[in-house]
């Protein structure tokens, strides 16, 4: 175990956990349609909805967990960028990389311990917060289907892919700023393409193939990308001259 990385990842873990927890709290207890603290929703009105629950006049609500999936996807991508950008670039910038590279440890182990610790911390923080949100959602008048839990796996895969991508970028960046810039540019480009696809191909009724099929295909693509980025990062780190 790379002790210094363990200490660094501990800090990141608590920060990520705090950010996830804050947004989860706000979503569940403040922003949600069911939330008592929701400013634009009268508590009496909420009570009326509860009475009307099951009738055809019940307004269509977006379940809290569905909203959490959307929000946590964005938080996870940003957190994953933070997780990967300083893998190598920061050490290169501060000159501490020579300390690790001159120890009797292979570069394979160095890179793996760095990237796996960051991925683990991110996924654990996400899981710890997602479970309570799901449980709270289950107590609401309109709980989400269990199959939506599968989407959390997709978000985790996206997080892993982004950590691996920004880790790969950090090998070539000379400092964290460069690393952030490059990662942001690439992710913005990716988001733009995704949005373009969503807007221009909305008429293709993907859901007709079955939600599980679409989810499996998308997860497969993201997972493959994560594997490619990881392998590329490992390959480059093992051969790069510092």
């Amino acid at each position, binding site marked *: *175990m*790379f*002790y*210094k990385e363990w*200490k*660094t990842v501990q800090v990141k873990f608590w920060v990520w956990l705090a950010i996830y927890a804050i947004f989860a709290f706000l979503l569940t207890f403040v922003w949600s349609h069911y939330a008592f603290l929701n400013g634009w929703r009268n508590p009496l009105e909420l009570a009326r909805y509860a009475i009307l629950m099951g009738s055809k006049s019940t307004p269509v609500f977006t379940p809290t967990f569905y909203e959490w999936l959307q929000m946590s996807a964005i938080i996870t991508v940003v957190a994953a960028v933070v997780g990967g950008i300083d893998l190598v670039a920061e050490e290169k910038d*501060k*000159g*501490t*990389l*020579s*300390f*690790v*590279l*001159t*120890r*009797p*440890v*292979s570069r394979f182990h160095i890179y793996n311990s760095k990237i796996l610790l960051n991925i683990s911390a991110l996924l654990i923080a996400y899981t710890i917060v997602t479970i309570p949100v799901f449980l709270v959602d289950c107590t609401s008048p309109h709980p989400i289907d269990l199959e939506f839990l599968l989407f959390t796996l997709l978000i985790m895969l996206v997080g892993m892919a982004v950590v691996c991508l920004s880790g790969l970028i950090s090998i070539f960046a000379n400092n964290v700023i460069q690393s952030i810039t490059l990662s942001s540019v690439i992710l913005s480009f990716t988001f733009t393409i995704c949005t373009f696809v969503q807007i221009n191909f909305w008429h293709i009724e993907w859901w007709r193939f079955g939600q599980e099929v679409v989810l499996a295909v998308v997860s497969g693509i993201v997972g493959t990308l994560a594997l490619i980025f990881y392998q590329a990062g490992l390959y480059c780190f093992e*051969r790069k*001259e*510092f």
Partner: protein
Amino acid sequence: MIETRNWNSQATNLTALDDGAATNRYAIALDGLTCRYGSRVAVDNLSLRVPLGSVYGFLGPNGAGKTTTIKTLLGMRRIQLGRATILGFDVAMQGLESRKRLAYVAETNNLYGQLRVFEMLETARRLSSRWNPDSVQRYLDLFNLPPREKIRKLSKGMKGQLALVVALGSEPDLLVLDEPTSGLDPLKRYEFINQIVREVSAAGRTIFFSSHNLSEVEQIADHVAIINEGRLVIEDELDNIKSREKAIKVSFDRPVWTQDLENIAGVRKVLQEGRRFRLLISGDAGQVAEQVRSLGARSVEVVDMNLEAIFIAYLQGQTEYFGQESRPPEPER
């Protein structure tokens, strides 16, 4: 104890090179090492031998290729041409084995500033194949380093001492130092050098260090190599070099052509210092002094050359020798 350690190194070195018996006598052996940055040659066909147990000064001007050579030895750069062995282990093929037996103290402080002293030591312990907590504690007490202090709050001198503790904690057979005293004031530099001599050199370990500070090299080194533009200029025991290289201070009552002095056999270079001349000699200084007297010199004095004078003489001589064909100096990496 020293012999035992060396014997152990040799005994465990089962997969050493074919000529392992020869290379095992040396802590570092370079044969035709060549490193390029693109089309530019940073280290050019460099061959040298660092004997076991020696304190070896690796000298050269900025951009000479010192750091590139050290980085290559440590496995941070690939060997493009030639061969390098550390304690009998091929750096290219047995990098991990060689790194188990060496420690490195970098020019730029390569400690993690965000960690505390004991956390840094723990990091180093987990990344080392052998670790001696007793000696680490002894060094901490000796240098008076506070274990719970954040490293970024330590002074430059204390950081240097901590880097030395981290390096010595793994009980290396070879200690590689790259400009270890850069940034230290003269007092701290003096203390640091003394500590190295006392703790490392006295234990019979090999020290390979590069430095710009020639007086400190002269203070502790027993072997010296000077490189310039990636090529070896001279390599020998320091005493041999100093006994071979002499200078003669000469003054005349009449004007003298510098060329007349340069034409004397054994004179490598003539430096004019006001109305006096300093002749840099390689060979028999007495014979040269006699010839200078025959030219009517008022006073002739044979003096020893210090390492700085030798360094300058060799590099100036080389520059003049290579003239326009000499490559421009490359930036230090």
